[in-house]
């Protein structure tokens, strides 16, 4: 199989043997171990739990550990590059700082009102708020959605689907006490209203979450707050 790897210096071509059930991460690992040890890439769990091995495969952002070569190879060839919309540190390794800084800017930290001396809050799984949290809580921060987002590409300040999805899950957490501040954080020029609802994030999310639905929820919530004069 012919593999084109977009490295920091240039695109480099490798010849990699095919195997049954081979993943794209297997291909990258083969290149680094057998063909060129200078190739830089990032992975940890290899089973779709950590979200660190995301790369651009044939133009589409994917978890390489959960992507079988059989499913994505065109004419027995693959093109592998770093995630888009993020600065490249080297070869296939991107700098994730801005991505996570945006989570912080969208007020992605939980701040509850209770202390360790209080009892647990009882939350029924059937409540509408909790269902909204459940729909988005499984995000592992792999940045596939961020890399797929056209709005991030056009407006680098845009908070992006993952950070806004995080803000939406916290907004629906009944224990959370900082929600008015969170609404202000996501209502700015780079916030939820910048989303064009292209749904690339939802299309590409390996966890099958819908950041688009979360962002639509934030638009409604900020609009309600604005009409009440609370924003």
């Amino acid at each position, binding site marked *: 199989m012919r593999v084109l790897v977009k490295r920091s210096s240039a695109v480099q071509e490798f010849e990699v043997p095919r195997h049954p059930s081979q993943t794209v991460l297997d291909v990258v690992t083969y290149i680094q171990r057998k063909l060129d040890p200078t190739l830089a890439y990032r992975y940890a769990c290899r089973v779709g739990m950590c979200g660190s091995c995301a790369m651009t495969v044939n133009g589409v952002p994917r978890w390489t550990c959960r992507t079988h070569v059989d499913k994505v190879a065109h004419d027995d060839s693959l093109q592998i590059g770093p995630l888009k919309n993020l600065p490249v540190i080297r070869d296939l390794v991107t700098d994730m700082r801005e991505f996570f800084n945006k989570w912080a800017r969208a007020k992605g930290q939980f701040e509850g009102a209770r202390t360790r001396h209080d009892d647990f809050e009882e939350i029924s799984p059937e409540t509408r708020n909790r269902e909204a949290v459940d729909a988005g809580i499984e995000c592992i921060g792999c940045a596939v959605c961020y890399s797929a987002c056209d709005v991030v590409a*056009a*407006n680098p300040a845009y908070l992006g689907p993952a950070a806004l999805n995080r803000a939406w899950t916290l907004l629906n957490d009944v224990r959370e006490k900082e929600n008015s501040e969170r609404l202000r954080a996501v209502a*700015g*020029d780079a*916030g939820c*209203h910048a989303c064009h609802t292209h749904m690339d994030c939802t299309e590409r999310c390996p966890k099958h979450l819908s950041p688009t639905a979360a962002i639509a929820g934030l638009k409604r919530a900020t*609009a309600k707050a*604005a*009409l009440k004069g609370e*924003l």
Partner: protein
Amino acid sequence: MTQTVLWLAQRVTAAILAVCVAVHLATIIYAVQGGLTAAEILGRTRGSTSWLVFYSVFVAAAAIHAPIGLRTVLGEWLKWRGIWREVFLVFFACALLWFGLQAVIGVFA
């Protein structure tokens, strides 16, 4: 806050425009049956307060809706952000309103 108000304004005007465009197109299709003349159009619109109100609302909604969308296009495509973009868009909105209302008054009076 500003973004939210702009978003709400664009959504509300979009709803108004959806109705206005539908009525406008339906009227055109109805009116062109058997030919169309300037005299026929003016015969319908001159002195008609209903058409005056309808097209005034249409123009006002377009003058609010279009600059908000253009604001995003200018920001994302031309990277034009900041105060001068807003000043330009206020002028653009006023121009749309002015020329639109001139046309509305032109077929009413």
